[in-house]
């Protein structure tokens, strides 16, 4: 498969995922988009192996690796800090009430807020990766020009 065909296919997969995401939101079926996402990534990896004119040399691999390592180094701290808040939900043991409590037990992090936090984390991860990738691409001469 040619490189351009591969990029076209990736675009089609992304658009399909967007449609499935929208359908999942409308019908409130999160499992559908979760499974579709995993399948989409698997398909992309498998198809990428058949691309003949895409050269992944050691410099490109180094740029990707460095960007991923730095992203992970920053992201895990933020992720762990937020996750600790979510773990509090599991470990929360209400004090013995003097009188029977009515209604639902108090929620430290409501599910909707957790959703927004996850969205923020996802965006942070993408921004960090893109930022570091641009930084390392510049460092290792990605946009250098020559007299040739």
């Amino acid at each position, binding site marked *: 498969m040619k490189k351009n065909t591969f990029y076209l296919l990736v675009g089609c997969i992304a658009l399909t995922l967007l449609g499935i995401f929208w359908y999942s939101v409308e019908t409130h079926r999160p499992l559908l988009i979760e499974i579709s996402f995993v399948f989409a990534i698997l398909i992309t990896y498998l198809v990428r192996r058949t691309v003949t004119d895409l050269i992944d*040399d050691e410099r490109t691999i180094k740029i990707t690796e460095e960007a991923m390592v730095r992203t992970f180094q920053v992201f895990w701290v933020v992720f762990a800090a937020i996750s600790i808040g979510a773990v509090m939900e599991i470990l929360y043991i209400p004090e013995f009430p003097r009188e029977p409590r009515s209604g639902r037990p108090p929620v430290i992090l409501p599910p909707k807020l957790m959703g927004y936090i996850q969205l923020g984390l996802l965006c942070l991860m993408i921004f960090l990766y893109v930022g570091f990738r641009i930084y390392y691409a510049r460092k290792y001469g990605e946009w*250098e020009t020559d007299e040739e």
Partner: protein
Amino acid sequence: MRNKIKVYRAMHDLTQEDLAQAIGVTRQTILAIEKGKYVPSLDLAFRISRHFRVNVEEIFLYDEATRDPPSG
């Protein structure tokens, strides 16, 4: 690390693209190595020198002044 890739390319009348294709890397990688932006691995350094049929130390010169700080 300094190198004489550009000199050897000129001697063999090769473009960056020709050399890149011959050793299986991108033209941008050859350009980055020539400009000292990227230090190639031992494997790639040997492949380049073998392509020009010379020893690796004839193309790549270790320069203490431009030594990369240890990463980590």
